C-alpha cells in the first residue's frame, strides 16, 4: 500500500497519547454496534447470566473496535486525502500504521477467543467472520474496487444482532437474520445520502462511491428504490413473533417519513455540482443537499428507534405480534 508523504513526516512530530488509540477503535460506531448487539441478545429470549451477557457485549464492542483499527491502518492513505478523516490518528501522524495494525490483530484475537470461551463458539465464529468481512472483504477489497462497496460491506455492520442472539441462545434463527437484514437494507440509503454531500472528498481520495461513479441523479434514484424495499422489511418483525404493537406503530409511521424524505431527495438536486459549500464540518453542506442531510439524519433516528422499541418491548414483556400465523390461520 502506498503511504502518502504526509504520513511519514508527520509521524515524527506528535507523540501518541492513549486517547489516540481509543480513537482508532471508532467509539461512536462502537456504541451503535453495542446497541444492536444488545438488542439481539435480549430479543433471543434466553436467560443469560448478566455477567456473561455483559462479556458478550464487550466482545462485540472490542471486535468492532478491532475492525475499525484495521480499517484505519489500511485506509490511512485515503483518510489523509479526505476532509472528514484527515484528523484521524494514523493520517495525522500521531499513531504509526504498524501500531494500528497490531492493536487490531490483538483485539480481534482477544474478542473472538473470549466470546468462544465465555459464551459459545457460534457467536465467536460469527464475530470472527464479521471482523474478517469488514477488514478484508470491505476495507481491502470492495471499498477501492466497486461502487457497491457499502452495499455488500454493509453486512459487517448488520451482523452484531445475530452475534448477540447467538451469544444468548447458541442459535441464529430467522428472526435474528431479520434484524440483520433490516440493518443491511438500511445501509445503502443511509451512506449514499451522506456521500451525496461528501462526494468531492471521495472523488479526491479515489474511492468509487456511488455518486462519484454513477452520478448524483442515479444515486438519488437508488436511494429511493432501497428505501421502498427497506421500509416494508421493517414491518416484518411484527409478522414473525419478534415485534409487538408499539414496534409496528413506530416502524410504520417512521417508514412513511423515511420514504417521504427519500422521495423529496429523489426530486431534489442534492449532490449536483454548484452551490455554496460551507466548510465548518461534516454536516454543513451545500444548500441543495439539505434533503440528503435530512434523510441521513432521520435514517440514524429511525434505526435507533426501531431497535430501541424492540429492546423496550422485550424488557417490558410486551407480547410480540405474530401477524403471519394470524393471516395463515
Amino acid at each position, binding site marked *: 500500500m502506498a503511504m502518502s508523504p504526509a504520513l511519514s513526516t508527520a509521524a515524527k512530530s506528535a507523540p501518541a497519547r492513549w486517547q489516540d488509540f481509543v480513537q482508532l477503535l471508532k467509539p461512536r460506531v462502537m456504541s451503535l454496534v453495542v446497541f444492536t448487539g444488545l438488542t439481539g441478545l435480549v430479543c433471543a429470549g434466553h436467560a443469560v447470566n448478566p455477567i456473561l451477557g455483559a462479556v458478550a457485549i464487550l466482545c462485540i464492542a472490542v471486535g468492532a473496535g478491532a475492525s475499525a483499527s484495521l480499517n484505519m491502518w489500511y485506509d490511512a492513505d485515503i483518510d489523509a486525502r479526505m476532509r472528514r478523516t484527515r484528523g484521524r490518528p494514523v493520517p495525522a501522524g500521531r499513531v504509526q500504521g504498524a501500531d494500528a495494525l497490531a492493536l487490531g490483530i490483538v483485539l480481534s484475537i*482477544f474478542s473472538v477467543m473470549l466470546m468462544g470461551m465465555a459464551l459459545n463458539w457460534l457467536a465467536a465464529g460469527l464475530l470472527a467472520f464479521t471482523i474478517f468481512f469488514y477488514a478484508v472483504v470491505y476495507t481491502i477489497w470492495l471499498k477501492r474496487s466497486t461502487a457497491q462497496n457499502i452495499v455488500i460491506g454493509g453486512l459487517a455492520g448488520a451482523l452484531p444482532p445475530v452475534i448477540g442472539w447467538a451469544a444468548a441462545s447458541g442459535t441464529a434463527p430467522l428472526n435474528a437474520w431479520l434484524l440483520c437484514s433490516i440493518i443491511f437494507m438500511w445501509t445503502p440509503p443511509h451512506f449514499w445520502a451522506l456521500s451525496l454531500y461528501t462526494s468531492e472528498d471521495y472523488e479526491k481520495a479515489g474511492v468509487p462511491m456511488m455518486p462519484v461513479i454513477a452520478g448524483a441523479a442515479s444515486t438519488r434514484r437508488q436511494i429511493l428504490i432501497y428505501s421502498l424495499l427497506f421500509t416494508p422489511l421493517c414491518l416484518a418483525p411484527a409478522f414473525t413473533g419478534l415485534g409487538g404493537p408499539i414496534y409496528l406503530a413506530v416502524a410504520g409511521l417512521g417508514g412513511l417519513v423515511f420514504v417521504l424524505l427519500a422521495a423529496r431527495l429523489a426530486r431534489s438536486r442534492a449532490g449536483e455540482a454548484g452551490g455554496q459549500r460551507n466548510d465548518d464540518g461534516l454536516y454543513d453542506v451545500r444548500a441543495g443537499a439539505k434533503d440528503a442531510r435530512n434523510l441521513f439524519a432521520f435514517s440514524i433516528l429511525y434505526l435507533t428507534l426501531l431497535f430501541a422499541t424492540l429492546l423496550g418491548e422485550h424488557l417490558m414483556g410486551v407480547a410480540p405480534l405474530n401477524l403471519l400465523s394470524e393471516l395463515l390461520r
Partner: protein
Amino acid sequence: MSDPAHESETEQKARRGRNIALALGLILFVILIFVVTIVRLGGNVATNVL
C-alpha cells in the same frame, strides 16, 4: 520509536499515559478472565449432582 532517555516532557507525559492505560487494560483483562472462570465454573458445578 524515540529514545526514552532523550524524550521531551510532552513525549514523557504521553508515554506515561500510554503505560498507565496499558497497565489498567491488563489488570481489567485478568479480572475479567477470573470472573468469567468463576461464573462458568459455578454454573457447571451447580448442574452436577454430588
